[in-house]
């Protein structure tokens, strides 16, 4: 199902390449996007399997787990740690920023490739090495790293405590390499969007998803540095016995928390913004209506980006920081919900009065806004330092951030994938299978995490490996039933992905004709290129005449007006 007809739409200056050069050594942004995407999906399968293993352990403590075996406490910790790490750094990041950024930025701004194609290839290669290192860390002596994805010292710094001397260093090296990969990619994204826009495309004509990916790349670039330095320091602490995070000789474990969360909180917006942007594109296209308040939306994006640098300590309210500082960070945290809420309102305003088409990508796009809203609203409780003292480290927190990250990563992936699938492969996915897949996935997802809000509110601590060790927590009312319900929800959600796979296979085998360049009748530039776009993307490099969301204009016959269509094309026709 890969784009095998690339060679046919070449326009010169490009030799026939063998399979290896084409798919593993390519500098073409579309190929690199797919490399990122499928590597990310493969890693998500590992992350999903880890989730399956530890959820089974939580629902049926100490029982045999089919496909995994009996789970020890160390294995449990390693599974939880690497589930979090993989889902954020090796699934959400590569798929949302790297894959869709690579695919969309050159196509949407109307140029033939990234500005630095070879740096782009290098970025993926470094990323691939980091993924290999991470996966190999599961198999070294002592097993994978087990100090939670936040890697707080002293647990992460001292192998006497975490009992995974090799695993924790490999984990850290993998994360640091992954940062390098995304810094290389990010510079490329920013420069391409700034510098290589098609003639006529002003700042305000850039599609919102490109803006959001660029802002996300800038956020990543400006926040990851301290953690990169912190990772080097922690690596020194682990392997050379330094004292950066060891209070014994003048170090400070809280310093790591500051370095980590100074990156860690903007990181939420780094992965959120691309998904938010994709849902904006989809909602405008399938409402057949102009995106409501484009500029206001942009300002909310900038506001989110700036404020996201001043909220990080809300992760540390009970870590012993100054209570006066906690007040400040409570205020900033509540302030950042304003621009995010505004984005959601603008999308709802876009829907209002539109002629809405509930195609599969639209379902995912709407689900993203609805489910993310739940994650955002529960965040208010955790951002308020008073309430957080009670909620901290309970399953309420787990449920909260999964209501942000599952919409971002999983719903975000399916929304982008189903919407741009025709562009990537020239075929349409099956709508019926797509809808069944959508509804079962959403049902399973909510079934996992709604019960966890309740167990968390009732005080269920999130770092317990076997609840049967704590009879109060098992026999107390329906606590254990809710845990089992969450696990059943996960099984439903995982098994729904079989339908997705069936849909892919069915579409790949089907003999349907090429869907044409613009199956959704959308305005942005990528829909003027052939599906899939050949080398160099556009047959004729486009010129831009208007903004990206000119839908349903009253004085026009067709309800869309592509950005690159000359203004008087109607009169001539």
């Amino acid at each position, binding site marked *: 199902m890969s784009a095998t007809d690339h060679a046919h739409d070449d326009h010169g200056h490009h030799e026939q390449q063998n399979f290896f050069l084409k798919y593993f050594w390519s500098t073409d942004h579309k190929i690199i996007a797919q490399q990122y995407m499928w590597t990310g999906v493969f890693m998500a399968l590992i992350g999903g399997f880890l989730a399956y293993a530890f959820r089974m352990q939580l629902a049926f403590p100490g029982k045999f787990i089919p496909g995994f075996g009996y789970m020890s406490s160390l294995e449990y910790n390693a599974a939880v740690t690497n589930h979090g790490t993989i889902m954020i750094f090796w699934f959400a990041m590569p798929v949302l920023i790297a894959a869709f950024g690579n695919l969309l930025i050159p196509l949407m701004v109307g140029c033939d490739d990234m500005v630095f194609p070879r740096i782009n290839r290098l970025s993926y290669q470094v990323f691939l090495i980091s993924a290999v290192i991470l996966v190999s860390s599961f198999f070294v002596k002592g097993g994978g790293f087990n100090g939670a994805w936040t890697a707080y010292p002293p647990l992460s710094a001292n192998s006497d405590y975490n009992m995974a001397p090799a695993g924790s260093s490999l984990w850290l090296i993998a994360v640091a390499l992954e940062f390098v990969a995304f810094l290389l990619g990010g510079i490329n994204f920013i*420069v391409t969007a700034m510098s290589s826009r098609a003639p006529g495309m002003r700042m305000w004509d850039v599609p919102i998803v490109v803006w959001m990916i660029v802002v996300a790349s800038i956020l990543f670039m400006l926040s990851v540095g301290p953690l990169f330095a912190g990772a080097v320091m922690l690596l020194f602490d682990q392997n050379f016995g330094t004292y950066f995070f060891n209070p014994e000789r*003048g170090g*400070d474990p809280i310093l790591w928390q500051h370095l980590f969360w100074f990156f860690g909180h903007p990181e939420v917006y780094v992965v959120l913004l691309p998904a938010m942007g994709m849902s904006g594109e989809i909602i405008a296209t399938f409402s057949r209506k102009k995106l409501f308040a484009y500029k206001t939306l942009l300002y909310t994006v900038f506001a989110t980006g700036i404020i996201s640098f001043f909220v990080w300590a809300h992760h540390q309210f009970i870590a012993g920081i100054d209570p006066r500082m906690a007040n400040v960070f409570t205020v900033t945290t509540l302030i950042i919900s304003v621009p995010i809420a505004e984005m959601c309102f603008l999308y709802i305003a876009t829907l209002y009065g539109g002629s809405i088409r509930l195609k599969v990508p639209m379902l995912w796009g709407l689900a993203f806004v609805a489910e993310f809203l739940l994650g955002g609203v529960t965040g208010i409780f955790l951002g308020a330092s008073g309430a957080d003292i009670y909620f901290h480290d309970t399953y309420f927190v787990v449920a909260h951030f999964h209501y942000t990250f599952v919409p971002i990563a999983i719903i975000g992936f399916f929304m982008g994938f189903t919407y741009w699938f025709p562009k990537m492969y020239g075929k349409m996915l099956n709508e019926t299978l797509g809808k069944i897949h959508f509804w079962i996935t959403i049902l399973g997802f909510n079934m996992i995490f709604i019960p966890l809000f309740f167990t968390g509110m009732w005080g269920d601590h999130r770092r317990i490996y076997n609840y049967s060790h704590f009879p109060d927590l098992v026999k107390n009312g329906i606590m254990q039933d809710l845990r089992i319900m969450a696990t059943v929800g996960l099984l439903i959600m995982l098994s729904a992905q079989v339908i997705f796979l069936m849909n892919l296979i069915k579409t790949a085998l089907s003999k349907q004709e090429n869907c044409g360049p613009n199956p959704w009748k959308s305005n942005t530039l990528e829909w003027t290129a052939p599906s899939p776009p050949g080398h160099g993307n556009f047959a004729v490099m486009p010129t831009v005449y208007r903004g990206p969301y000119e839908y349903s204009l009253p004085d026009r016959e067709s309800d869309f007006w592509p950005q690159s269509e000359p203004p008087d094309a109607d009169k001539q026709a």
Partner: protein
Amino acid sequence: MAHAKPIATLRTAAGVPVGRLAMWWLLASEIVIFGGLLVGYIIHRNGHPEWAIEAANTNTLAGAINTFVLLTSSLSAVLAHQAAQTGNGKRAARFLWLTILGACMFLVIKSFEWTHEIQLGFTLTKSGFWSFYYCAAGLHAAHVIAGSIAMGVVAVDAAKGKELQRVEYVGIYWHFVDVVWIFLFPLLYIAK
């Protein structure tokens, strides 16, 4: 494999050549790496007045000489840029090699200095101060090495009159490496 440059690389909607633009963004990401490290150091230093006793053992004279060497090498980077602007690739390459010579001198002085300190027992693990000292200066030295390699690659091309615009970009990077040292020198050596 030779690559024809994509159209994207030749466009300048931002009004700046793409290489220079990318270099500034690279520096932005580098600034936060060193920024995080140094802010962490400053906060710790304020919390540990006793580190001043440790800091008294650094060799301020060696640090001062190194500052002079590094700043002088920046001068030749500027002269290389000037030569590249007039299209004189050979001259630009010569000045770049001179800059690399300065970088090597910097590293030689540094390695003598560190050997001496380690012999006196001031190792990476002696205390928090020395952990920061070796980590920050080591990260900087890694940048000096990386910058030298980059300048070497550019100099080889420039001598053949190719890719002369890159002389400016490595120059920008080299000034950044300088500026980091300007922060490190007082923080690690002078502050007692």
